[in-house]
């Protein structure tokens, strides 16, 4: 005798049902991926290998995804409001900018003392050097991409020109690292202008394609001009940098003193005070290289910070914003663009010759497209035009694969996931926001 009024209404889809449904879909997708990727493994058995299917592993991974997606769906709506609310209050922003002012000097201070800290061993100083090379390249590319707005996908070409200039000059004319460094920078700047001329009229995608091509041309020339560049065998026995003429080695050639003897009058008392013995140690060279790249990188940074406040730096930014307006104001777009290309390339050249002297061996394999992509990723992830952003992004992009070394084949996966996460959370880059090059009223609140 049921009447219409007694019939229960269809249950409205509540949050739990929706969440369960989404979690089920995610788990199903995971199952599709996990069956071939995680499920099948080759196992050694006596007399060969056999294919094993790991049911437990597949089920576990699906369960984890199911639980994770369910939890996310249940808490959806709370999380973003909480985070943005926290970061968008005026107080937080002011605090952020105040912290931002301290971060730079703190990082420089840390970089200066890092090799002397107790935990620093050869491996850590070496990684620090790698990070600093990329920081310097990022700062150099920031001039071209961040300030002048010219998307350059072939930046590694100038890095290669710097490295090969140094290796060839040192090999053929017996010049030292310190004599070659400015020459390598000049050569790279010259190549920057050479690339600049044909691409003056191009912007955006078209410019990116041509610069990409230029990067490959340089690499292929290096690979094929066997008698000059050594081709795929590369160039080896590149001289190491010396310290005021003193080589950092156990023994020096005739007429030179090795570094540990040269520095003994200063270093011996210091070491004795610390209760240690001064003498030749291989790590001296690693630490010395670290300080060279630190100084080179800081010079790049100082140069960029200053030139941003000069008319040419402002013209770069104006050109990035509107080329037509620039011409109507009497700014010569040709010279402005070429100067950006040349200066950006020059710093890549410096970094390249440092790279050559550090490795002692270079070959075209060190200058593939992926290097350009990593450098560009550093600039974009860090936030276009931000100097601090480049440091954070470079540390991130070099340390993540390094930390992931134990995970072997999963490290590129971690790298990719980290980049996707950054782009989802901060599409404008890690450090965004531009500091005006000149103010009329002074800093607000300061």
């Amino acid at each position: 005798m049921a009447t219409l009024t007694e019939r229960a209404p269809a249950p409205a889809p509540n949050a739990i049902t929706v969440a369960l449904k989404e979690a089920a879909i995610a788990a199903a997708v995971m199952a599709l991926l996990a069956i071939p990727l995680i499920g099948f493994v080759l196992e050694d058995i006596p007399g060969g290998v056999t294919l094993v299917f790991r049911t437990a592993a597949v089920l576990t991974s699906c369960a984890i995804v199911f639980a994770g997606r369910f939890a996310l769906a249940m808490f959806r709506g709370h999380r973003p409001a909480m985070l943005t609310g926290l970061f968008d209050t005026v107080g937080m922003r002011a605090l952020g900018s105040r912290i931002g002012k301290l971060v730079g000097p703190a990082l420089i201070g840390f970089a200066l003392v890092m090799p002397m800290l107790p935990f620093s061993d050869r491996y850590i100083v070496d990684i620090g050097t790698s990070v600093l090379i990329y920081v310097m390249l990022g700062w150099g590319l920031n001039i071209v991409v961040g300030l002048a707005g010219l998307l350059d996908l072939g930046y590694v070409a100038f890095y290669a020109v710097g490295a090969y200039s140094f290796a060839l000059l040192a090999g053929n004319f017996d010049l030292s690292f310190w004599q070659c460094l400015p020459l390598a920078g000049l050569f790279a700047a010259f190549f920057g202008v050479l690339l600049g001329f044909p691409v003056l009229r191009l912007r955006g995608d078209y410019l990116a394609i041509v610069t990409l091509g230029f990067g490959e041309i340089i690499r292929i020339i290096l690979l094929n001009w066997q008698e000059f560049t050594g081709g795929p065998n590369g160039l080896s026995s590149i001289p190491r940098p010396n310290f005021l003429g003193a080589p950092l080695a156990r023994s020096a050639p005739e007429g030179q003193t090795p570094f540990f003897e040269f520095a003994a009058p200063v270093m011996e008392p210091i070491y004795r005070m610390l209760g240690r013995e001064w003498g030749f140690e291989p790590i001296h060279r690693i630490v010395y290289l670290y300080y060279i790249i630190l100084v080179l990188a800081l010079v790049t940074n100082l140069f960029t910070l200053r030139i941003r406040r000069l008319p040419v730096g402002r013209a770069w930014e104006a050109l990035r914003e509107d080329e037509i307006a620039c011409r109507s104001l009497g700014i010569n777009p040709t010279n402005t663009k070429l100067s950006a290309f040349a200066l950006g390339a020059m710093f890549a050249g410096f970094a390249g010759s440092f790279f050559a002297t550090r490795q002692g061996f270079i070959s075209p394999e060190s200058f593939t497209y992926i290097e350009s992509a990593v450098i560009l990723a550093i600039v974009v992830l860090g936030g276009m035009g931000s100097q601090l952003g480049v440091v954070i992004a470079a540390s991130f992009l070099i340390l993540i694969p390094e930390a992931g070394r134990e995970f072997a084949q999963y490290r590129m996966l971690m790298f990719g996931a980290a980049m996707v996460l950054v782009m989802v959370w901060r599409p404008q880059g890690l450090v965004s926001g531009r500091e005006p090059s000149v103010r009329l009223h002074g800093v607000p609140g300061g």
Partner: protein
Amino acid sequence: MIEDAAYQPLEPGNILQVDHLTMRFGGLTAVDNVSLRAREREITSIIGPNGAGKTTLFNCLTGFYKPTVGRLALKHDGRVFLLERMEGYKICKHARIARTFQNIRLFAKMTVLENLVVAQHNTLMRASGFSVLGLFGAPGFRAAEREAVDRARYWLERVALVDKADWEAGNLPYGDQRRLEIARAMCTQPVLLCLDEPAAGLNPRESAGLNELLRFVRDEHRIAVLLIEHDMSVVMEISDHVVVLDYGRKIANGTPLEVRNDPAVVRAYLGEDANEELPPEIVADLGQQP
């Protein structure tokens, strides 16, 4: 900086002489044999219906287009510049013509003040020793930069934007952006200011403010202004001289009052008179209809 000795000097009092300017894009003639004069310390307006070729004329003047035919001569400091032979950016740098754009072209991500300092690029570039002296903070450059900021402040006061000097230019309201673009053009210290529809999108109060500003530029800075405008309240009130274009041709020329009463102008704006007799063949066609 091109001077031509063979060229007849401009008539006294003229700053700009455009002779037989023709600009063709393939089969389309956007500007057809237009000649006009702009006199020193006067506001010359160019009006005409949409597509009459006004902006094309401006683009020829400021070096964005190379004219098909014609001579564009500008005189200042006793020198004559033939604009049709000059490269785009040099027209502002040497001939000292500044312009604004119909669709505002500010450097949106830079601050208001920076927009005005960028406009003084060439002066500052020389003062910074093409960046070399500037890198080391040479005193001469610092002084030049202070001067540039002072000039910028002067124009910010004129356009009532001092309080917003450190704003991002792209965040300004529309009317402020229009005024900032004029201030930026004035910071290049031009002898001829070309404004492409500066009153477009302004409310009546802002239009009145614009009239005030343009009069100030003409009377206090004693420069010539070339103005493209649709807003007749601006054109009729401040112009010393009006040139009317239609389909690329000059159809009238004179004081605002003369132009307003010119039958050719009325026809161009309002169409043919409705009472006018129809051509005989059309009457014949109409007559065949039942």
